[in-house]
């Protein structure tokens, strides 16, 4: 797999990761509670920045952890069976996103068990300083692992096959792209866009986002299958 293909896979996987909505929902709640409780603009910015940083750090940690474990097991020679399982996982999670990601009710409620959703909602309301917001960011990434595990896994497999000098860049590109949505919303609300506008946009476009995320995962699965297994069979790996 050449370096361009590797970065293409990492970029698409990170875009799918960015399209998942749990972190965005928690940011929306955190921001709403902060404004609603009359916290100053600077304090609200500090809280939400702490949250975005927490999400970024946990994404980096999970990706590097996955890459380290996989490298320990397979070095740079990943067996065809592991690629096949990963491709199947990507397609399977893609279908799961189409079917399960959003609940069939008004608003932007997602698949998350209601007790966990209540916990995150209560924590976002109780968050008073940046350190708490940071840990809320860490938690929200872990909560979404059911869906983000597939893009993280394929990116980790691709990263361990890259030359050593490119690997840190691969990790950085994934983390940066996966934060695009969250960072854009953080910038938008910091610039004065109303939460109601953003929430309405999210609600109106949730089915499109769900379809796009699921389709992108399935396409990624097929693309990785063609790039690894089929090219290996054809002897051009």
């Amino acid at each position: 797999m050449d370096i361009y293909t590797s970065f293409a896979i990492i970029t698409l996987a990170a875009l799918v990761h960015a399209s998942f909505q749990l972190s965005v929902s928690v940011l929306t709640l955190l921001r709403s509670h902060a404004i609603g409780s009359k916290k100053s603009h600077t304090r609200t910015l500090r809280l939400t920045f702490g949250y975005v940083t927490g999400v970024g750090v946990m994404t980096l940690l999970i990706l590097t952890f996955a890459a380290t474990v996989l490298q320990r097991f397979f070095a740079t020679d990943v067996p065809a069976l592991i690629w096949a399982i990963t491709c199947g996982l990507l397609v399977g999670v893609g279908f799961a996103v189409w079917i399960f990601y959003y609940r069939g009710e008004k608003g932007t409620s997602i698949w998350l068990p209601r007790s966990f959703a209540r916990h995150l909602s209560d924590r976002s309301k109780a968050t008073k300083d940046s350190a708490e917001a940071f840990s809320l960011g860490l938690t929200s990434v872990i909560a979404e692992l059911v869906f983000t595990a597939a893009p993280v896994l394929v990116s980790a497999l691709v990263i361990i096959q890259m030359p050593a000098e490119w690997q840190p860049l691969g990790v950085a590109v994934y983390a940066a792209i996966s934060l695009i949505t969250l960072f854009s919303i953080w910038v938008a609300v910091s610039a004065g866009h109303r939460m109601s506008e953003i929430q309405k946009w999210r609600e109106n476009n949730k089915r499109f986002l769900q379809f796009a995320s699921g389709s992108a995962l399935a396409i990624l699965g097929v693309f990785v299958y063609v790039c690894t297994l089929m090219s290996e069979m054809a002897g051009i790996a």
Partner: protein
Amino acid sequence: MSGKSVDIVKRGGRRATEAFEEKKLRASILAACLSAGTPVGHADALTQTVTNAVLDWLDTRPEVTSDDLRRTAAKHLSTHHPDAAYLYEHHRNIL
């Protein structure tokens, strides 16, 4: 409302009924107004207007559900500030 107590049946009837607290209603309406970007003074005035309307509605009822209370407050708020009413009504459906 003439000081009589009203019982609030919590969401889905799964949690214990609790007495109505005007302070909680006021705080939730104010939070929705502020989240929708309303200036503090205007938000306070809207909160007062909507709270009074909800208190009038409660006057003839000994018991209401929390969902009915939320819907009624959102209905009155929507005539003054649709964005705040949207946030108020859908707050629980964000996550």
